[in-house]
């Protein structure tokens, strides 16, 4: 039955893949079922939670909203593509960015799309499509900040600056313009334990 479909060719984590799947099959299912990469998670199936975030040509997208055909010719990166060696992965594990872990792969990829030194505004906006129910996001911010320090040494890893991480399914509202953001930078530096 699958043989009836024309192959869809794309680059997955640096390797060329060719798959005969229904062109409207969700990229999420293609990755999890046809490619066996279960690091990409399904949280809602409607593009709201961001657990299925992957990078398509450097942009963070919700794989549950992308039909397989749309990946043709694209460079797709999943959490497995970071091979556990991206500075963000270590930072998330060590600085409270991951608790239950189900949002973590998507969160890390969305953060990776922001590049190594995002401002707090960029982080807040860039991760607005990734829901975490455990951390209150503070641990995520801490991890991203620590990654910033770590990745200065590995400048070569810097992402394309134009990759803003805005997703097609990005979340409902922009920050209210009447209310100035009181914390323009990541505020964790001032934290201390008493």
């Amino acid at each position, binding site marked *: 039955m699958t043989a009836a479909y024309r192959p869809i060719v794309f680059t997955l984590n640096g390797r060329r893949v060719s798959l005969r799947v229904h062109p409207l099959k969700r990229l999420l299912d293609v990755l999890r079922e046809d490619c066996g990469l279960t690091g990409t*998670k399904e949280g809602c*199936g409607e593009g709201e939670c961001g657990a299925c975030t992957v990078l398509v040509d450097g942009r963070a997208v919700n794989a549950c909203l992308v039909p397989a055909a749309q990946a043709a010719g694209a460079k797709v990166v999943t959490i497995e593509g970071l091979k556990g060696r991206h500075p963000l992965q270590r930072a998330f594990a060590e600085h409270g960015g991951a*608790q239950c872990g189900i949002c973590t792969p998507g969160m890390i990829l969305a953060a990776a799309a922001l590049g190594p030194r995002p401002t707090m505004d960029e982080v807040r906006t860039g991760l607005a499509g990734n829901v975490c129910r455990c951390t209150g996001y503070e641990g995520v911010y801490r991890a991203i900040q620590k990654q910033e320090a770590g990745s200065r040494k590995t400048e070569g890893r810097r992402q394309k600056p134009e990759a803003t991480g805005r997703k097609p399914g990005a979340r409902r509202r922009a*920050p209210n313009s009447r209310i100035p953001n009181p914390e323009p930078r990541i505020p964790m530096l001032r*934290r201390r334990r008493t």
Partner: protein
Amino acid sequence: MSRAVERNVVRKDGAAKAAGTARYVGDLALPGMLHARTVRSSIPCGDITRLRLGFDTSGFTVVDAGDIPGRNVVPLITDDQPCLAVGRVNHAAEPVLLLAHEDRERLLAATVDIEYRPREPVFDAERSDRVFKRVAIAKGDPDEGFRHADVVIEGEYRTGHQEHLYIEPNGMLAVPENGGVTVTGSLQCPYYVHRALTVLLGLPADKVRVVQAETGGGFGGKEEYPSMIAGHACLLALKSGRPVKLVYDRAEDMLATTKRHPSVVRHRTGVTRGGRLTAMAIDVLMDGGAYCTLSPVVLSRGCLHATGPYRCDHVRIDGRVVMTNTPPNGAFRGFGAPQTQFAVEVQMERIAEALGMDPARLREINALRPGDTTATGQVLGDDAAAREVLRSAVARSGYRRKRREYRGTNRGIGLSLFFHGAGFTGSGEVKLQSRASLELTPAGVRVLVASTEIGQGQRTAHAQIVADALGIPYERVEVAAADTARVPDSGPTVASRTTMVVGGLLKECAAEMRKALGGMTPAAYLRAHGPLVVTKQYEPPPGLAWDDDTYRGSAYGSYGWACDVIEVERDPVTEEIRPVKVTSAHEVGKAIFPLGARGQIEGGTAQGLGYALTEEVVMRGGAMANAQLTNYIVPTTLDTPPMDVVLLEKPYAHGPYGAKGLGEMPFDGVAPAVVNAIRSLGIDLREVPATPERVMAAARIRDSRLRPGDHERASARQAGFGIRDSSITLRQRRRTAARKPWTGRR
């Protein structure tokens, strides 16, 4: 060697979760596996008159109640909830029939027609006459207390449902093997599932094996309902003889599984002009939904926290939880305490407004101190820290200064003082008889407990406790999967008990093992003496007595204490309330894993902000009408303000290294702090979530020159003319009118 306790070690599950290699139930697949689906009722109450399969059943496994080999119940407190409905349905989305098929497309395309004879449903808890449980707590003589009051204040406070919204929906994978069944899934309490399966399947205990897969959040939502899902998966697996995976999608999870109990709490409080509480009469009503589940215990905990962390000699608390034809409500972080502490903290704010007193001062006057007694007569130990957390949060947030500065602006600031009892209520821990084990390995030691890692850091905290008690490096402690074939019953992973109670047992195990080792390395011991396993069972600390009939005694071994100060901004056009800053001081006994403790506070606070502001479960015809993330709004990065977290430590004598329970407490105080911040804007809100619609509809004083508290005095004046919802008696009106407004002096 550096100690592990109090150090921010690398969490045991961190690397696998960040690498994407951690395996959740949805990630598991077995050869020959069937996918499963639950057919559910579409009406809230009625009798099934006809059920017809509208599909070609070849390749399908179909299970109804007739296929249940044991008893058709999800056993818990009362066995009133069927695993599959027979004849009668009592809520929408109640499981009726189970289907399994290899091909998911065919499974989803299958149609089942169910015809009903509808019955009149009950949706309004205040009109329900079916009571699951009543609780009555009495201390002193409230009539006497009210006689000594200068002011009597009344109020009614409401909270809505809340969905847990763990990002991983529920799921189970059942495999028939060895004449029994093994089920792997997303769950908090392996032995709850184990017991449920032995009852449902009529199998001996050793033929049922329950294994926790990596679990993507729980918050109480995976305490009792996984027993139902595991039962369904096992019934299909046993009938088909093949592995069966049953994973909910988001909509089904939101429609069918448990939620936080909605509540209506009424307060009548007597207070002196100086701000001292003289009497508290509290009436608590909770909506249990269609079946009992854990409602009696939720009500109990709610009532035990209903006075808030305040001393009062004359208290009466009456609670009841009732049945409605809505999906059953169940465990959710806080477990009844958020509802009742919301009510008492908004009531305290209104008392301060009526007295013209600084809200922080009013709380300071009445805060429980060491040696004080709670409503059940429990004498508090030296670790009672209500005043410390209050002072810390007030000073650190600049609460008093900001309260003055924000007057007349669209920015408000509010506070809440709260506490949370750790461990099972009353004699619960004794009845649980929890056990924990340590097993010597060549490299070190293995923790064997039924406690589950659901993101809170259980594996890490337990390993830290064991490492230090045994005197070995943290890295040499491994934590076994929660698998009923390997680990003893350590009780459920609920009630903020995992670090304090189970961690305490592990510390005892480690101490005994250290003695047994006598300075030998694990490898040398194993060579010389063979395997070594140490097991300990829970014994209550001395002096902890509780009477279930009279509700007198020590309700909890220890309490954590906390204070939140939350600043909000009101959009004058849309009436949207946005939180802009949270300051939170938590007293936790001892932070075993400080990063984890902080994570619990920040995450619990964010979840509380959702409860306070945006998370509205819209019930229509007894079913959740907004069962999707698009319009059930949980906080995102853009909705969650910066949080300043302070950890205070007053060690608990019977916790490991002084640790108390923490997981639930951060949730308890958020909603009242938010609503009190909204009140400081002159908006008389007494209900959450504080959606723009509710804020718009709430009573207010139009004159912006009025100060917080003025609308209370205004409503006291209205009371003389018999206007409804008068909140202050005439006697109080005369007295407050004579008082000069509070000047803001400390």
